[in-house]
């Protein structure tokens, strides 16, 4: 009984301690503070703490003093909490967590992790929508008269148009977007070779190109190869958008089988399937070309330029067949919001705060990806960022030496009349004359009369990154949104396993048999040797009158 009492005491003491701790938290969350649980990609938001020299010196209408420019002093999340609490009669706090892949996020959700606001990619948004997990945005979120509704007031019509087409607009707000393509070293890789997905199986670049280690990106590039001729035949543009989308979302059994063979060929030719190592390998020159998402391509080019010991000029190419237009968007989850109006308001405010143009610029600067926001401030930032940009009609800024410019048309994104004037050398590829393929730049449709001759600024240009951040209109014309695999996911994953695993059928059955036989013989030999005394040699029996002594 004594012992029982003691145990009881301990249990009681522990439970009292636990209760008081919980109630302490419980009180504060219930009455005063709303906790917003946000899950975002790793390294996908401005964490602040910029150096003095990192100030983006453009006029910022959202700052207290517009002359202050754009500067990330504190982390974006902290700034949001401060901004929100100043504007509302209740307080919030943000529980910010990160995930590494869409699948990682999905698995965590299925395991019961609760988030209010998450930022998955297009296909994962589709999957969550199909499973009815997503809470729609409120009507207030779409109220254009409210100046705090930065998302609806500033998001590019191009992006919202696509979201409308797929029926996502009510549920998702685009955060970042981009294309897929190939980063390469122009000194060592032929321009023609990187203008097609076939470079992945090009014997000239055996073991010198990396591919993404995830089934969706690998499958997309493979479809680009398998359907390559058809894609080039149907041409670019809106007219054939549906055909193109069908070809690149083709999950028929025959195509999956063809993709398997193609991927096996690619596996034997590429340097590696990489998840993250490709960036460093590209910068250090271990590989010559690298299948990348546009934002990481920008990051790689920046890194290679800034490499003090060995600055390298890298380029980003979007293959002629097609490119995967991808989006990462904010969606609210029903399980998290759970009918709580304040929580929902906070989640929507978070999206709006990130969409405030100066914050969009901060995030773009910090992570290298392209925001969905298309305001003047973002355009000014592009203008500021790519230092060689100038307007030839403006006498004051006209540089005598800089006589060759290219008009980089961004009207599809920012609206009519938005073009950046880019130093032509920024887009120069090789040799003495500018040889920009029309496919790469959309020259046929958007070119101008300025004659291109080469100008090199004497230092490494940073303008090439622009091409990664904002694809030209011609690239948009061959872009495709890759949808969720749906029911076909199992088949495609099986295909992926076939590619990545060693398949016994690939080997001569005789050899497999011999190897198996040898292994079996060796194992048998070891076992027999071990038990040899018991099996072959009779147990030693002591002579009469003697006793065996166990050691």
């Amino acid at each position: 009984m004594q012992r029982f009492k003691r145990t009881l005491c301990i249990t009681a003491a522990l439970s009292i301690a636990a209760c008081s701790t919980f109630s302490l938290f419980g009180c504060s969350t219930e009455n005063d503070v709303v906790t917003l649980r946000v899950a975002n990609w790793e390294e996908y938001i401005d964490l602040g703490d910029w150096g003095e020299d990192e100030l983006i010196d453009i006029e910022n209408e959202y700052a207290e003093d517009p002359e202050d420019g754009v500067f990330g002093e504190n982390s974006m999340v902290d700034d949001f909490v401060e901004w929100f609490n100043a504007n509302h009669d209740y307080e919030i706090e943000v529980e910010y967590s990160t995930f590494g892949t869409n699948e990682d996020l999905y698995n965590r959700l299925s395991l019961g992790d609760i988030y209010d606001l998450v930022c998955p990619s297009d296909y994962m948004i589709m999957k969550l929508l199909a499973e009815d997990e997503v809470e729609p945005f409120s009507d207030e979120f779409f109220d254009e008269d409210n100046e705090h509704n930065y998302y609806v007031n500033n998001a590019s019509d191009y992006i919202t148009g696509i979201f409308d087409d797929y029926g996502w607009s009510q549920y998702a707000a685009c955060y970042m977007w981009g294309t897929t393509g190939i980063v390469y070293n122009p000194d060592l890789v032929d321009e023609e070779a990187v203008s097609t997905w076939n470079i992945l199986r090009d014997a000239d670049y055996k073991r010198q190109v990396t591919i993404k280690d995830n089934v969706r990106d690998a499958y997309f590039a493979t479809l680009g190869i398998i359907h390559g001729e058809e894609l080039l035949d149907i041409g670019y543009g809106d007219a054939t958008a549906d055909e193109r989308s069908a070809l690149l979302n083709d999950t028929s059994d025959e195509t999956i089988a063809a993709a398997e063979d193609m991927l096996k060929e690619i596996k034997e030719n590429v340097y590696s399937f990489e998840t993250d190592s490709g960036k460093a390998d590209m910068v250090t020159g271990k590989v010559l070309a690298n299948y990348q998402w546009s934002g990481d391509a920008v990051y790689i080019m920046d890194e290679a330029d800034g490499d003090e010991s060995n600055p390298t000029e890298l380029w980003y190419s979007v293959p002629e067949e097609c490119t995967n237009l991808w989006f990462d968007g904010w969606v609210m989850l029903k399980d998290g919001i759970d009918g709580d109006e304040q929580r929902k308001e906070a989640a929507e405010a978070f999206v709006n705060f990130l969409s405030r143009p100066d914050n969009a610029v901060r995030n773009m600067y910090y992570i290298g990806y392209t925001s969905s926001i298309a305001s003047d401030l973002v355009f000014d930032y592009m203008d500021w960022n790519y230092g060689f940009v100038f307007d030839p009609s403006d006498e004051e800024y006209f540089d005598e030496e800089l006589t060759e410019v290219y008009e980089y048309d961004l009207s599809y994104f920012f609206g009519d009349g938005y073009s950046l004037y880019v130093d032509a050398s920024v887009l120069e590829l090789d040799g003495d004359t500018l040889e920009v393929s029309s496919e790469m730049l959309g020259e046929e449709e958007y070119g101008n009369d300025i004659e291109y001759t080469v100008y090199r600024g004497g230092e490494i240009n940073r303008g090439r990154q622009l091409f990664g951040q904002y694809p030209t209109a011609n690239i948009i014309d061959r872009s495709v949104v890759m949808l969720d695999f749906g029911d076909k996911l199992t088949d495609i994953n099986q295909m992926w396993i076939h590619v990545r695993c060693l398949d016994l059928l690939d080997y001569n059955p005789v050899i497999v048999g011999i190897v198996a036989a040898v292994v079996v013989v060796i194992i048998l030999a070891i076992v027999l040797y071990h038990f040899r005394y018991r099996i072959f040699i009779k147990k030693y029996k002591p002579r009469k009158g003697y006793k065996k002594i166990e050691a």
Partner: protein
Amino acid sequence: MKLRFNRKQLCIPYAAFLILFVIVPLLVIIYYAFTNGEGQFTFDNLVSFFSSTNTIGTLIYSFALAITTTLVCLLIAYPTAYILARSGFKKKYVLLLLFIMPMWINFTLRITALKEILTVIEGNIAAYPFLNSVIGMTYDFLPFMILPLYTSLLKLDKSLMEAAQDLGASKIRVFLRVTLPLSVPGIISGITMVLLPSMTNYVVLDMLYNSTYIMGSLIGSYFNAYDWNNGSMISLILLVIIFIVTLVTNRFSDKDDNGGREVIL
């Protein structure tokens, strides 16, 4: 009130740990392994593992990689441990330390460094995926082989060898008939500690650009495709294989003590 614990109560944390982190997860794995996506009981996952040439191929590839790594480790570790244990160096603990020290550095860091070295030696390291994986794993697991060998060789009674020599055995014969058999527990313990982890350590393969899956990466790929059932079944099968291997090796070393495992654990 005085808080005093008796022995039984002291093992509550241990029991709680065991239940929470060993038994419950194991039950969850077993549950998923024998159910399908709808939660119905099925043996399909088991059948599909053994009926696919890919999964069997992966199993064989993992074994091939693990066995090669173990053999290489053994070939390097045995002479090293022998020399260390038998040598008259006064500072042999310093030498031993030199072999163990890499273990104190995070292994991803070591493999990254190894990658650079291999690049210098081989040029394009993507061309030799199997070789590089073996080198990487050997580098990673060598101390686990050296330590048990070293302790078991150190404990050898020298008089046994002297006796063999006195009775006219040549040095080779002494080694083959006395030293080697007596160090078997150390060898077995080293093999267990190298063979089993090297079957699943796919991070080394990833980092050294081996694109072929081993068991670890195969399990990961199923979980990435939200197929927890097949993933769990493969984990379970791997668990059973490891259990069998441990059982077999324990039979070999049961006469002796645990063969120097205590050095590491």
